[in-house]
Structure formats: structure tokens, C-alpha cells
């Protein structure tokens, strides 16, 4: 059925699909959940275009045909109404809405069910069906993994439940695997949205929400916070990094047990940097299993896509960030560090150390 809508020879939808950035558009879905939502969007759009077409056609006809012409003074017939017409324009919308409501109800349940994947995979195995990439549950024969997403003002924390470690800002996931997501928040309400992979669900304080997504293709997908959460709401971005299973396993290993170099750098400058880090930063930031939880885990900081959710990953930007966090993310929870606290030399060492924090193979 989903294929059917995509095959409809309406050029409009072809125009729409594939619209926008590949990593950030609901119109350019990159995974089964977003695909499903896109088909619904497309279906509803067809119906709405049909409605608009009918209304506009009558409207234009009426305006042209019945406009007052110069010299015309006739009094139109005062019509009361028409029973047949009333029935027609009550029934047709009801039918159109049913066409929309039925698939929607089905999809709503599918999306709410984080176990569907396995069930469907089993059924398909039995049927020996060919895997299409936009049917939910078709591609996966892996176990699902579970990530608890804790949203903070204004950063994201990802706890990998199956492996017992935490990552900050970049959410690594293996391709072709169902990722079950549990959403929580300790401060205010946020909303977890990766447009190209799945629609949003809210991170609500005191409540755990569930959703799932899946990425068949490797890639870096933009994620956003979609609920007003304070001054830096618009900067509360994150990345979903989909990698193949092998890389993912490496990454998990690195995160659970970071390279020796991260804890006791052999490089002298980095070792100085580590000292600064231990003095000023470790109370909030963890590297490996050492360190506080008040800020994002930095075990793989060197491999971050961007810095603080949105800044280019450059030394100058990192220094600027550390010197004045308020400037880059108003109202965020991290203190700034003046030259009295960390002088320029220490800063360079710190940055050197920070850049060395990697868990995957060297690039």
C-alpha cells in the first residue's frame, strides 16, 4: 500500500519527495518510520489537493459567472437550500476522511509499538519475502537496541541501555537495526526530532515516552529539539550517526573502555591538558567512567561532528566556547573560564588533550 502512493503518477509528490537536505527533511525520508510518515503526509496531501481543486473550481466559476455586470439590476432568486446537495457535500468529505483515518490509525499503533519490528521480521522470514527498504521491520534481523535519551537545557545525553555507558551530543546507531528510544527529561520539556529518520516525541519530566527508528543507510542525520525550552532552544541540536554494525561495535568498545591515551596521555602537552581537565572540567564531564554527569560525556569529543551542538569543530571555536559559553548558548549550564582560571598556555594544552579524545580508529 505504501508503494502504491509513491507510484502515483502525480508529479507534485515527486517534486516534493527528495525535497530539502538529505539529512534533515521530513520530505526526504531516510528510514522506515519517516517513510511511513511521509506516505501519510503524501496521502493526506493528495486528498487535500483534491478538496482544494473542487473548492477553487466552484469558486472561480461562481465569481466569473455571477459577478455583477454594468446595468444589471435584476434581483436574484432567493433560494432556500437544496437537500440533495447537502447530502452530497456531507457524504463525500466523510468518505475522504475515512480514507485518511484508517491508515492513520494503523500507523499510529505501529509507531507506538516498539516490539513490532521483531514480530514482523519473524513473519517475513517465514514467508521468505524479499526485503523492501521502506517497509517497517523488513531490513532488520538484528536485535533491537535501546537508548535512553535524556534531554537537558540545552544538550542531549544518550544512555545505551544494553551496554551501560553514556554518550553526549552524537547518537551513534548501527544501520539496519531497530533502535528503541526512551525519552526522559530532568528539567523542562524538550522534544526529540530527527526529521529524516522519525517524527518527534516529547521528553517530558516525570514521564518516559517511547518511540523507535531505524536507519538503513549510513550517514549523519540532523536532530533537533522541537519544544520551546528556553533561550537556547534553537541551538539544541544533535546528530544521529548511523554506522555499519562493525564500526558500531568498535565504537561501543571504545566508549565502554576508552583508549589508554585518553586517561593518561603520553603526549606531554596533552598530559598537561589532562591536568587542567582534571582540575576544572572533570567534575561535570566524564571521560570513560571517570567524571561527573552534569555536562555531556566527552569520551569521544575528538570525533564530535560539531561542538556544543552547532559550532564548527575547530580549535578556535573550542577556545571561544570555553572562554564565554554564554555568548554561544545563552542560559546554558556550563561556566565560562577566564584567563585567570585557565591561562593561554593551559588552554592550548587543554585543547590538544580534548582533540585527542577519540574512541574509533585514527582518521
Amino acid at each position: 500500500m505504501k508503494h502504491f502512493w509513491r507510484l502515483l503518477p502525480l508529479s507534485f509528490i515527486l517534486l516534493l519527495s527528495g525535497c530539502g537536505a538529505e539529512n534533515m527533511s521530513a520530505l526526504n525520508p531516510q528510514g522506515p518510520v519517516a517513510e511511513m510518515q511521509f506516505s501519510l503526509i503524501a496521502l493526506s496531501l493528495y486528498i487535500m489537493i483534491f478538496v482544494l481543486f473542487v473548492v477553487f473550481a466552484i469558486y472561480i466559476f461562481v465569481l466569473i459567472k455571477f459577478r455583477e455586470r454594468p446595468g444589471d439590476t435584476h434581483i436574484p432568486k432567493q433560494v432556500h437550500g437544496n437537500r440533495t446537495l447537502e447530502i452530497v457535500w456531507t457524504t463525500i468529505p466523510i468518505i475522504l476522511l475515512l480514507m485518511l483515518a484508517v491508515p492513520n490509525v494503523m500507523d499510529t499503533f505501529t509507531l507506538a509499538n516498539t516490539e513490532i519490528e521483531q514480530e514482523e521480521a519473524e513473519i517475513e522470514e517465514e514467508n521468505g519475502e524479499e526485503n523492501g527498504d521502506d517497509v517497517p521491520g523488513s531490513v532488520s534481523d538484528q536485535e533491537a537496541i535501546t537508548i535512553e535519551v535524556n534531554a537537558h537545557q540545552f544538550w542531549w545525553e544518550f544512555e545505551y541501555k544494553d551496554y551501560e555507558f553514556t554518550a553526549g551530543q552524537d547518537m551513534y546507531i548501527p544501520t539496519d537495526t531497530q533502535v528503541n528510544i526512551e525519552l526522559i527529561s530532568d528539567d523542562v520539556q524538550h522534544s526529540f526530532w530527527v526529521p529524516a529518520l522519525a517524527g518527534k516525541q516529547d521528553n517530558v519530566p516525570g514521564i518516559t515516552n517511547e518511540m523507535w527508528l531505524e536507519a538503513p543507510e549510513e550517514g549523519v542525520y540532523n536532530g533537533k529539539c522541537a519544544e520551546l525550552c528556553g533561550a537556547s532552544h534553537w541551538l539544541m541540536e544533535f546528530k544521529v550517526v548511523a554506522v555499519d554494525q562493525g564500526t558500531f561495535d568498535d565504537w561501543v568498545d571504545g566508549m565502554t573502555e576508552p583508549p589508554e591515551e585518553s586517561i593518561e596521555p603520553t603526549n606531554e602537552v596533552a598530559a598537561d591538558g589532562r591536568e587542567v581537565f582534571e582540575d576544572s572540567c572533570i567534575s561535570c564531564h566524564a571521560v570513560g567512567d571517570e567524571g561527573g554527569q552534569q555536562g555531556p560525556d566527552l569520551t569521544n569529543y575528538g570525533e564530535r561532528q560539531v561542538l556544543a551542538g552547532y559550532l564548527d569543530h575547530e580549535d578556535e571555536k573550542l577556545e571561544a566556547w570555553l572562554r564565554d559559553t554564554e555568548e554561544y548558548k545563552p542560559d546554558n549550564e556550563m561556566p565560562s573560564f577566564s584567563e585567570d582560571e585557565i591561562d593561554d598556555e593551559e588552554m592550548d594544552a587543554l585543547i590538544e588533550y580534548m582533540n585527542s579524545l577519540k574512541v574509533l580508529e585514527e582518521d
Partner: protein
Amino acid sequence: MSEHVDPTAPLQGEPSKSTERKLRKEARVQIVSYFLMIFMTSLAFFSIASDAVDSSFAIPFIVIVGAVQVVMQLYVFMHMGEKGTGWINTMIWSGILIAALTVGALMFLIGIVKY
């Protein structure tokens, strides 16, 4: 200029015979329903206060008794069943419907249990 009525003048005179009869009947009805309500309240009270009644019965019971009393208050004490109260009935029952929806939503749809 014509004379205008003074609405602050005290009303004088007797109620008509039929009014008097109606009022007397009404007083009777009111007192009877008052005792009925007292009785129902007591029933509800004892079904909870004493351990003799099982709570699986007591809870729906007291809720029903409460609802019956509310309806009695509205129709007996507040005369909502009289003629010419069509709009009043519309508004009160709409209010009750919306209040019920609100209560339902706040009990069940607050994210603790997902439906």
C-alpha cells in the same frame, strides 16, 4: 409623561389559591427529598466507614449515590425540571459533560499509563 412602576415597592397581597396549594405541596416534596439525601449520604458514609462492605462494591456504589444526589439537588432543590428551563438544562448538562471529559482526561491521559 406616563407613570412608571416602582420596582422597589414592597409586594402586597396574598398568593393565589393555586399558588398556595403548589407551595404547600412543594414544601412536602422538598422535606422528603431532604431526608432521602441525608439517608443516601449516610449509606455512602457507612459503606466506607464500616469495614463490612467490600470496597469493590462500595466504590461504584458511592459514586452512583453521589451522582443521584447531584441530580436530585438540581431537579428538586433547584427546580431544574420546571417548564421554561430548556436553556438551563442545556447549559448545565453541557457543563457536566465537559467537566466529565476534563476529569477523565486528567485521570487517565497524563502520560503515566499509555492508552
